[in-house]
């Protein structure tokens, strides 16, 4: 049996090993990130298989729950952990092509970011959730400003401001719960929720929700997103979109379904999701900066996931998880492509990237991921949108789904414009190196494989019902 704790232990160990390796050879230090992420991917695959027989609880430091610290991995958590480590792995391959100085710190923060995000997903303990969230955030702050230019610092400072407010709320929420229940174990809290003062419970819930919304990019706590994504190195933006945000949204899902089970609150979550989608899509439509456009689009996609959680039926949750997978993968491809464009042109203006996608090695994965984000079939993105819309109508949210579909038309419009610019015939394509296209190709192939044959994912998502009922 493989312990889920390895998912945290390995990257933590390798992260602290990195400076030591870095003393010997800076060249090898760069390879620590793919190594850590790759190992994590392997481990999470094993963990995923283990969880099929039931949630895996990994008890740390000798105390049994609810007293001790516990890792709690259900199939869905393992799936998201796999997603996080896999995308981190592929993006880190791309990072090898575009190393940022100082490499040691960059690699270390990268591994820590991945580790924190994984921890947020697999922890079974509220305070650990906070700790991992802080690790993720602080690593993110560092990475967001790694370009060491004005935009990078500005983006990071906004992220820091909003992020620390969020952290505070989370801490307050945890404090309130601990004050009343004297426990931090999620299942334990869930079981003893009725003992809590209902008003305090609401305050705690809202605090946690607001705090985690920052990472999950829910309106109006997603204000940092455009600037931070724009300022960060493109590979880091990819990780933000596909790793950090996914960890945050999964944490929110656990807060809602596993801990509190407030089904009354869900329609407000639907509204929030709708607002996030609409504002994200509409802003992306008028945005002329490539990376900001992708950032707004990322917000909108996160909104779709929130919407899926808010609708709260099995179908909707399946859609939301599909959406998480497809968005993480497709957006990683797009941000890596953006990194390539930025590298080739030195700017992120939309007009400057004309014709750069005409090389099929870049163009094909780019097209596949755009089509996936548009929600077209044969690609993974189809299932997410289809299930969520269907579930929304089934649950009677007619007007909201209509608005979402309107926003999707807007999305199609700006992504088609993006493709139009990228495939513009007036400019010649530039050369590409394997470091550019191999990671994109890997992810695009994943999009297509699971788009055509989604059954493995559906197998995992068959556990959604128990998650919905308060399981893990």
């Amino acid at each position, binding site marked *: 049996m493989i312990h889920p704790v390895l998912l945290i232990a390995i990257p933590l160990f390798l992260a602290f090993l990195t400076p030591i390796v870095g003393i010997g050879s800076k060249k090898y230090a760069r390879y620590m990130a793919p190594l850590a992420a790759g190992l994590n991917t392997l481990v999470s695959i094993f963990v995923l298989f283990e969880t099929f027989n039931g949630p895996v609880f990994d008890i740390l430091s000798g105390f049994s729950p609810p007293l001790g610290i516990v890792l709690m991995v259900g199939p869905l958590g393992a799936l998201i952990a796999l997603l996080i480590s896999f995308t981190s792995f592929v993006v880190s391959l791309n990072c090898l092509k575009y190393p940022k100085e100082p490499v040691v710190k960059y690699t270390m923060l990268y591994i820590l970011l991945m580790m924190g995000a994984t921890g947020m997903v697999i922890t079974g303990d509220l305070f650990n959730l906070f700790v991992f969230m802080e690790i993720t955030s602080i690593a993110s702050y560092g990475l967001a400003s790694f370009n060491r230019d004005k935009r990078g610092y500005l983006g990071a400072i906004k992220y820091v401001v909003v992020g620390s407010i969020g952290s505070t709320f989370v801490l307050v929420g945890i404090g309130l719960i601990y004050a009343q229940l004297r426990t931090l174990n999620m299942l334990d809290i869930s079981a003893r929720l009725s003992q809590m003062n209902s008003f305090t419970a*609401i305050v705690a819930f809202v605090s946690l*929700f*607001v705090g985690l919304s920052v990472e999950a990019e829910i309106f109006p706590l997603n204000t940092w997103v455009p600037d931070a994504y724009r300022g960060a190195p493109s590979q880091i933006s990819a990780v933000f979109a596909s790793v950090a945000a996914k960890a945050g949204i999964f944490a929110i899902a656990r807060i809602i379904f596993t801990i509190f089970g407030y089904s009354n609150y869900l329609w407000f979550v639907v509204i929030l999701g709708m607002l996030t989608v609409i504002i994200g899509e509409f802003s992306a439509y008028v945005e002329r900066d490539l990376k900001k456009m992708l950032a707004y689009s990322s917000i909108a996609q996160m909104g779709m996931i929130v919407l899926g959680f808010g609708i709260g039926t099995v179908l909707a949750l399946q859609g939301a998880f599909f959406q998480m997978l497809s968005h993480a993968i497709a957006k990683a491809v797009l941000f890596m492509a953006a990194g390539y464009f930025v590298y080739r042109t030195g700017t992120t203006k939309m007009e400057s990237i004309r014709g750069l996608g005409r090389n099929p090695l870049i163009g094909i994965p780019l097209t596949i991921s755009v089509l996936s984000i548009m929600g077209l*079939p044969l690609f993974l993105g189809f299932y997410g949108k*289809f299930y969520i819309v269907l579930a929304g109508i089934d649950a009677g949210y007619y007007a909201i789904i209509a608005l979402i579909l309107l926003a999707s038309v807007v999305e199609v419009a700006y992504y088609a414009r993006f493709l139009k610019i990228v495939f513009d015939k007036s400019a010649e394509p530039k050369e590409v190196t394997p470091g550019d296209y191999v990671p994109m190709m890997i992810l695009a192939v994943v999009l297509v494989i699971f788009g055509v044959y989604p059954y493995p994912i559906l197998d995992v998502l068959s556990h959604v019902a128990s998650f919905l009922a308060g399981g893990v």
Partner: protein
Amino acid sequence: MDLQTLFGIFIVLPVLGAFLSYSLGKRASIVATAFSAVPLIFTYLRMGDWSQYTFTALGINMSFELNPLNWFFILMTSLTSFSALLFSISSVKERQNGFASLMLFAVAGANGVLLARDFLSLFVFWEIMSWSIFLLVMRASGESARIYMIFGAISAYFILFGIGIVYHYTGSFLYSAVGGVPAYAWKYLLPIFIVGFGVKMAMMPLHIWAPHAYSSEQSFVAYLSGGLSKLGAYGIFLTFYSFATVGVLAGFGTFRTVTIPGYALALVGAFTAFIGTMLAIFQDDLRKLLAYSSIAQLGYVLVGFGLGTPLAVGGALFHAFNHALFKAVLFLGSAAVIYRTGEYRISELGGIAYRMPFTFMAVLISIFALAGIPITSGFISKWMIYEAAISLKFVIVTPLMLIASVGAFLYSFRILYGVFLGQLHRRHEHIKELPPHMLAAMYILIVPMMVFAVAPGLIFDWINSILVYYGMNGLTYTTFSYQSSVGGANMLVFFVAFMAAFMVAMGLFMMKKARTVDQYDNYLGGEVRTDVELHAAHNFYKPLREVWEPLLKYSTERFYTRVARFFAGGFEEIKKVYTGNPQDYAAYAAMAFIVFFLIGWWLL
């Protein structure tokens, strides 16, 4: 035939072909043609082999079926896709592998849409088709592709919304379960489905993507206009006569035996035909002219479906078939002209017929079909729709259709004269006739048009089986003649009389010999100018344009552009939420907490 064969031949095979031809590089179209020929032959052989299969995928009950209706539509889409691919072997010069594989994806998508008997597969294949078209259009122009995709998305999302509503009421995706949708829900479902499918057939006012998309690679557009736009017609047929059924439609009230939704559809169709025709007359771009013509012709199909009598529906189906053939030939003709001259503006062409006579003959016959000249089957389908409208005594729909068909003469002569007749420009003097396989691609489609013109009974057999399958009365016909309640015609008599008259004329004509002179030996007040081009094709219908000018200033496209600009302005305002100021963001966070909390307090 079992499910595996059906699925394998119509969907898996084209997809495999797509991957194979992509890996081939140059000359990928040859392989793709072979792959598209298999479903065509298979379809033809499997006529009457109706069968239905149900299976479970994604945990959902799904179903495929071969029935007279989708057999009929598969036949026309396969025909057009085969000939478009055959034509593209030479006409597509750059990145042929991408073209061929996307075409095959579109073929798979179209076949899937047609075979589907459940909404999930309908939607999946609909979208596969949609994105392959998007990427194919993208090859020519990104902006066209964008406009196409926006409308494609509108179409898809309307259909998706409709599917959602059906699912909400029935909990199933099967067509057979649609009966469970309560009658009042059809108030919303009907317009949703009509808009969703109507976009694909470029129904007014959702047509503006068509002139853009139809300006891309012409051999693909032959398939897009000929084959894929028929899927919209198919969808509307299904909506009316399979999903909603006449009983539900009649629940909205009837107007002289025609249901109110049907009457509305017929009106929309008639206006589409009329306005499409009037716009086609003034186009100088050959591709856009054909695009508007396509819009207009599909208007007739809408009218037929709307009127809903067996004659009208049969006529609409027949017209869809005819349109698939003749519009594919016309677009292939346009492709041929562009292939040989590189020019698509009518005013810059002329006299191509003297150098490409076989191409001209093919285009001429298709134009006969387009204009409804009785020597091709194009007449019979129009006749059926007219007769249906006349026998119902509709005084708005009928004149619009009739005058639109007069307008069709105007723009079809524009093509004939501007492109093929008149003066051959000096720069086009050295062009050659097309290679045989490209001509074959066109003549394959000509043959059925001619055969069904003499013996419409052959196709009426198919149409009748569709009508009977969907519970309507059959048509009245024999092999050569057909009847409505108000009139009828015998095509054999017509052809014999035509041949006799032609022989008389021929006899008179052959009595004297004639001497052939050069095209520059022309009476121009005694002038013989060889240095200026005197092809009178520029701004051909100028007087008519002057008369129409006050109306032409209203443009749907401009309306949409204005709407888009208005929305974009609104979006800019919305985007201002992201002020870029961390202090604002902190305030948002605080406000968010308060609001979330208050709502939580109220709710929980």
